[in-house]
């Protein structure tokens, strides 16, 4: 099976976000990156699929050449090759423009199944996967928590509000991965060493075709300090009073 996992590098969770001078972008100085949480699950599912059905896993990212570091991490966990669609202003792309670039590369690579994270943990837009499927004209199941693939079709369970839906679909398809789908493995030293010898191809991403433009980026207002009202049962009346009259949530 020809398997592609899409991966985005995102700022690490320890990031103390600062807005850049233009008021539209994150201040990139000193930012450290990591593989987006759900993309780790996508890569793991891709590797598990290979282990079950054979084939090859390509991890595809759109980003700067530096994203090779995150790609190596994926290669260390069992993927076979990495592809970077290089674009130094990668973070300026909207979901549509990103999906379009990925689509062209996926068509070139040829794929039976594409795994994406359900959402990238930086932008939180959850759009690239479904847009990609639409552009490719493939089936798409989002937020998948359980997956069973056969040679040319599959079934997937996804989390809907308050219930679980089960879908059947034909391959090729795009699957976006929810957190319960699997438990990503640790690379292990063997994996890290093996990853050094695996290929990472770079080619320039097609020019951006943004349909939406960022006007402003603001940080959420600082949260007021918490307050300790007392301890144990004795504090309950004060707590209820505060919830009712100050926070007005009761």
């Amino acid at each position, binding site marked *: 099976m020809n398997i592609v996992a899409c991966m985005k590098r995102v700022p690490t969770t320890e990031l103390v976000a600062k807005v850049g001078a233009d008021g539209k972008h994150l201040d990139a100085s000193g930012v450290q990156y990591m593989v987006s949480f759900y993309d780790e699950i996508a890569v793991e599912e891709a590797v598990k699929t290979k282990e079950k059905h054979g084939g090859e896993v390509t991890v595809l990212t759109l980003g700067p050449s530096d994203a090779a570091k995150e790609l190596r991490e994926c290669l260390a966990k069992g993927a076979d090759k990495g592809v970077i669609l290089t674009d130094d202003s990668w973070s300026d792309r909207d979901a549509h423009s990103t999906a379009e670039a990925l689509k062209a590369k996926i068509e070139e690579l040829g794929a039976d199944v594409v795994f994406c994270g359900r959402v990238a943990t930086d932008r939180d837009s959850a759009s690239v996967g479904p847009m990609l499927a639409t552009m490719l004209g493939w089936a798409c199941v989002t937020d998948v928590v359980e997956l069973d693939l056969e040679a040319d079709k599959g079934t997937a369970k996804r989390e809907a509000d308050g219930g679980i839906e089960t879908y059947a679909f034909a391959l090729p398809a795009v699957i976006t991965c929810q957190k319960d789908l699997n438990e990503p493995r*640790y690379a292990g*030293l063997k994996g890290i*060493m093996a990853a050094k010898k695996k290929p990472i191809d770079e080619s320039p991403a097609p020019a951006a075709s943004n349909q939406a433009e960022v006007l402003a980026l603001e940080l959420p207002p600082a949260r007021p300090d918490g307050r300790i009202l007392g301890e144990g049962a004795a504090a309950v009346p004060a707590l209820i009073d505060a919830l009712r009259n100050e926070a007005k949530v009761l």
Partner: protein
Amino acid sequence: MTKGNEAGGFVRLLFQGKLDATAVLPFPWPSDETRETSDAVVDMVREWAADAIDPAQIDADKTIPQSVLDGLKELGLFGLTIPEEYGGAGCGQWTYAQMMEAVSHRCASTVTVLGGHLGLGMKGLLLYGTDAQKERWLPALASGERIAAFALTEANAGSDAGALRTTADRLPDGSWKLNGRKIWITNGGFANFFAVYARTPHPDDPNAPLASRPISAFVVPREAEGLTTGVPEDKMGLRGSSTTEVGLEDVVVPADHLIGPEGDGFKVALNVLNSGRHGLAASCIGQAKLARDLAVAHAKEREQFGKPIGAFGMVRELIAGMNADIYAMEAGAWLTAGLVDAGERETMLEAACCKMFATERLWQICNDALQVTGGTGFMKEYPYERILRDARINLIFEGTNQVLRMMLAVQGTRALVRDPNARFEGAAAFSGVRAEFATEQATLEELAPVFAREVGQAVARHGKEIRGAQHELRRLSDMAVALFEMGAVLSRASTPERDGEKPAPSEIALARLAFRRREREFRITLAECAHPDDELIDAVSNESTGL
């Protein structure tokens, strides 16, 4: 004009009057490829350790759970420094040091498993084994199917390991029969590969007394009949690390279980220890950073007199001191690891300096972190007391810091004792230092000859007897450690980690403070040299002990 013997590392040459900048400058930062690997290893270890290791539980339970040992195995860490041809990852000392630091930052007991295995237990085989022996044992050691232990110490042979009494007698078929009792063996409870040091027959005199028989090194697998291990010791710190007796009662191993030439076992043991002490220093760095991180967080949060305590000058002194000392600990350990990776053969004295410096700084940092934390730090619900208990052993094992001071100064003065002319003449120059550190460079160039002068005077006073002149040896080694660290700090701060990078202004201040603290240590010892308390010390101590 130079006259001395050119062979020797930075520290040995200092004793002989040469400040050899080229031995340590430029700083041997790893290649991009090595750094990429070690970064990936560190990221993996950190992520795994945060999930899988509960250091407080390990301390309370006095044992490392099987799940953690299995995790170390699955990650492949038992094979980190074992060559790839034997199933390991073939990483060098740089990556080893980074890995040790990362594990140690989470749990001192757990890092001791790896130190006992990679740093000690399997090292003799790696250094002295034949190809056939390596093929036989290394793959299982690399996978963690076999975990190694280093069995040298006995009840009457601690610092004086050469006094060991375990015997290995040759049987008619060439195999060996071992008898004896080892104590305090790290990994003893679960290891299944023991490097055992024992006395073998005297080559010429079958009736030679035990003490004059040579020592040889053996592999004894756990399954060997007659090998037993005792109950785990109940310890002050490293409580999760398995420390046990190892009993050998008529244990028979085949001829090919002898490691290295017969009779060379003591050399094997010393080289195992001498070649790896910077690894212990690296694990001290992990614990020191843990203590520092906790103390810094507390200093920012805790308010007294209407201010965060970190804003008070005396607390600043402690925080800055911790950071500066960690910078120097890293400089020394990374320099030594880098020199080994670059193929430098003589790093024994540098590694000893790293071990003494890092273990003593770690102890001080734990103390300072506790001071910053006040009463909170004294409470068992916080980790400071565990870190402090865990830190203490580092000054004792892998050669006590007294024994290492002795070794450093005796080795350093050896060439001069043999030949008082084996010294370099001429002005000291430490070129290649960044312009920002011109003052520090001048200081080092001033102090190195001062040290050489003190060495010369000590050798002139004592000659061969310097081996027993311990007050003198202690002062010389303290000065040597300070000079080594000053050189390491200047080299690190002067060499960009990657081409074209410049140190941030904050690094310049950090390096400068790190340097000046070592300078102060040097000058205090120098003042002692001018007005030694030796006679008073001997009189007062003798009065107390009657010795």
